[in-house]
């Protein structure tokens, strides 16, 4: 796995991923941009930055022993064993079939033993973790439909083949794609908390560095990983600390009002934009070790929290983030 801290430049992209890792309730990150900019690399690298989580041993949904529990036998007993597990980052590959996403009748058991049992799908595995969709804009519509509902409710309801199963599926969506290859449905766009436009650097030094590191990694992935493990460790500790601090970060009424003004000026739909903006600013402050959210925090995160929530104007060529910048300059 290419180390997160070894990614050259692309500060917005890395920042957004860190913010999403600090506060899950922000609801994930969408990386949109040119081909070959390392979007997928960054997302896959994120997994190793996440601190481990405690989960019930044997539970197919990785239930938290302290909190909500599912109704499988693992969680149902009074004395549950739990262990530290890596946070699941589940990859939803293209060409996936519906039954593997939501879970379905266990076909082997049904055929061989004549038993009716539920074979959990990717949504079950992603519970409490991240669901990663590479080339999210190329995902087939009927799979997107399944995701939309579950991503909003945090629960997967399976009613098929005589099965009736309900299980928790609280995951953070992380996606990447190239808008040139097809647009994303607005409903799916809205499920992502943050969105970042990624573009290729046009400066020789930066690009040379990208290539040198790629080359070094491909020659000897292990040595390369070791070289960057300290830097990755530092980032991981920063995320852990930020998670501890975030509850205490103060958000003044002034800031709430500012956030509302920005969203009003941009005419974003609904209150999700405002909420995301505040939460992202708070996570940003927590990452930086600041005690309160300031205008600067709002300014930094506004493009990634709002640019994908603007109403599309097909005839306006300026990029969404440029529109956000314009409003920021006027409002702040």
């Amino acid at each position, binding site marked *: 796995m290419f180390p997160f801290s070894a990614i050259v430049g692309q500060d917005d992209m890395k920042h957004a991923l860190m913010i999403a890792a600090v506060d899950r309730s922000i609801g994930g990150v969408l990386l949109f941009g*040119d*081909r*070959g*900019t*390392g979007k*997928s690399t960054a997302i896959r690298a994120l997994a190793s930055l996440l601190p481990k989580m405690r989960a019930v041993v044997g539970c197919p949904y990785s239930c938290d022993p302290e909190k909500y529990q599912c109704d499988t036998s693992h969680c149902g007993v009074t004395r549950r064993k739990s262990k530290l597990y890596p946070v699941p980052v589940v*990859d*939803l*590959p*293209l*060409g*996936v*079939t*519906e*039954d*593997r*996403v939501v879970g*379905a*009748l*266990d*076909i*082997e058991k*049904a*055929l*061989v033993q*004549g038993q009716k049992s539920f*074979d959990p*799908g*990717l949504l079950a595995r992603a519970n409490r973790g991240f669901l990663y969709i*590479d*080339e999210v804009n*190329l995902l*087939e*519509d*009927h799979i997107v439909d399944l995701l939309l509902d579950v991503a909003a409710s945090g629960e997967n309801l399976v009613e098929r*083949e005589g099965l009736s199963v309900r299980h928790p599926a609280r995951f953070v969506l992380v996606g990447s794609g*190239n808008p*040139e*290859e*097809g*647009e994303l449905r607005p409903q799916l766009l809205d499920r992502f908390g943050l969105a970042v436009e990624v573009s*290729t650097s*046009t*400066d*020789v*030094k930066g*690009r*040379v560095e*990208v*290539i*040198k590191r*790629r*080359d070094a990694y491909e*020659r000897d992935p292990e040595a390369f990983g070791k070289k960057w493990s300290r830097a990755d460790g530092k980032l991981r500790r920063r995320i852990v600390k930020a998670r501890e601090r975030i509850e205490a970060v103060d958000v003044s009424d002034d800031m709430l009002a500012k956030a509302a003004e920005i969203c009003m000026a941009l005419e974003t739909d609904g209150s999700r934009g405002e909420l995301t903006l505040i939460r992202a600013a708070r996570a940003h402050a927590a990452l930086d070790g600041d005690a309160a959210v300031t205008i600067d925090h709002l300014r930094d995160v506004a493009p990634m929290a709002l640019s994908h929530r603007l109403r*599309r104007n*097909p*005839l*306006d*060529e300026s990029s969404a983030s440029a529109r956000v910048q314009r409003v920021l300059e006027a409002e702040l």
Partner: protein
Amino acid sequence: MAGDPKLPEQDALLAATLLAVNPAGLNGASIRALSGPDRDAFTEALKCLLPDTAAWVKVPVTIGFDRLLGGLDFAATVAAGSPVFATGLLEAANGGVLNLAMAERLAESTAAVINQAIDRGEIRIERDGVTLTRATSFLVVALDEGLEPEEQLNPAMKDRLAFEIGSEALAECRGAALGLSRVDVVRARQRLAAVTVGGESIEQLVAVALAFGIDSVRAELFAIEAARAAAALAGRQTVTQDDAALAARLVYSTRATRMPAEESDSTPAPAEQEPPADEPGAERQSGDTMPDEVMVDAVRAALPKDLLDMLAGNARPPRASSGGRSKSRTRSKRRGRPVGVRPSYDLGASRLNILATLKAAAPWQTLRRQEQDLEARRIALRKEDLHVTRYEDNVETSTIFVVDASGSQAAQRLAEVKGAIELLLNDCYVRRDQVALIAFRGDSAETLLPPTRALARVKRSLSALPGGGATPLAAGLDAARDMAVSVARLGRVPAIVVLTDGRGNVARDGTTGADVADEDAIKAARLLRAEGLRTLLVDTSRRPRPRARRLAAEMGGEYVPLPFADAAAISASVQRSVA
């Protein structure tokens, strides 16, 4: 023992050799040429150079995910009584070649799955109750037989393949001897891992890529891998200037989007490739590493002719259509969006849904086995268990606007027409249609924009459209027909909206004269009807004229006079003629 092998002089053979030496670093090539001896010679050369155990897996263009990725093997599952997985073609191609036939017609979703396999060196399968990860690494040889600029290999896949070989390059190899053999390749492969690339070579390759306006970092990585392969073949430990120049020539010449600095300032940058604002900045930043002249010249000399024309501004960029292009979906029972399964006694051309079929059969197994006295493991299947997947086709529309920009369209009239089109564009956006723009004035018709979904660009070229000159109406209709036919070939539904007053005065052969021109226009209109194309004529004259109405009738399309039609009315007519 022989000395180090001599590299082939022809670029196509050179590319084949480098691919054979460094498949993992170069991923493959797209071959844009019609089938024929030249193309066969190339694939033969590649076969000769690859290990004789290497698989050569042919992928038909209509392949489904089940065969590409693998899935339940129906017959084997029934026989064994428990799920049996069948390997897909992506895995079968491991260590060899994935040969894509008619690659320009490859469905976007199929291309995306192959792209993902290329990127990861493995496939993740989550299908039919099976979860598997299989490592696979292969060379892609994509045979792109597209003729029109809008028929080409999926751009995301092209970006992932190191080389693009055109028919000119293939023709050069006629009768050429390869000059090296499998043994040389094996030796070079062994040396490859030890070949290093100096920092200076990397900087040079990056600087040259930027000078030619190449955006994707992948291109630079390919150039480096190609240079390493060349060095390995020559028995060198380090990449030399010559290796780098050779790699730049092969990789960059088909990817250039502009000519390097000096004369490029006046050339407008191909739209959407890069924001114009950062161009001068990019050149200033690269000041410390000036792209090497020799290398730049090597690339320049190898630019294919059509690309050269485009860069010189003589032709419209063929790549402009890369945005949202090629949603070619065939209309059959086996494609489109699966909308569920249904029982079916007769499979016909439908696709069997194995999982649903097995599930239908599962509950009855005990009973049927008792009834029929079958051996215990075999699954007793009956006709009524069969389920097929239902697909819903979603066919896209491309609306082709044909605008009369001649002098008979007074300036003010043209402005109104532009306004009407802009309003129509909003509808197209809502329906996610593609839009194309053709204008005719003076002595010919011009395609201002090939079908695109980037409506902002349509608006831009519309506002830049000048008016004046004669009215080559027939030429405009002919251009629309050509485009509509090629759109239909890609599986989309074309709709033509002609905005004119119907008063043509230039005939097809370029001569002026209202009578001949009229006759030609009527002929062109009849051809539109003969092709069964959906058409709409918006009469833009101040007072509706019988001439335009007759033209609409000859096209077999609707007729709307502009003076009486507000945008909403036109929009409604378009909807009707498109629906």
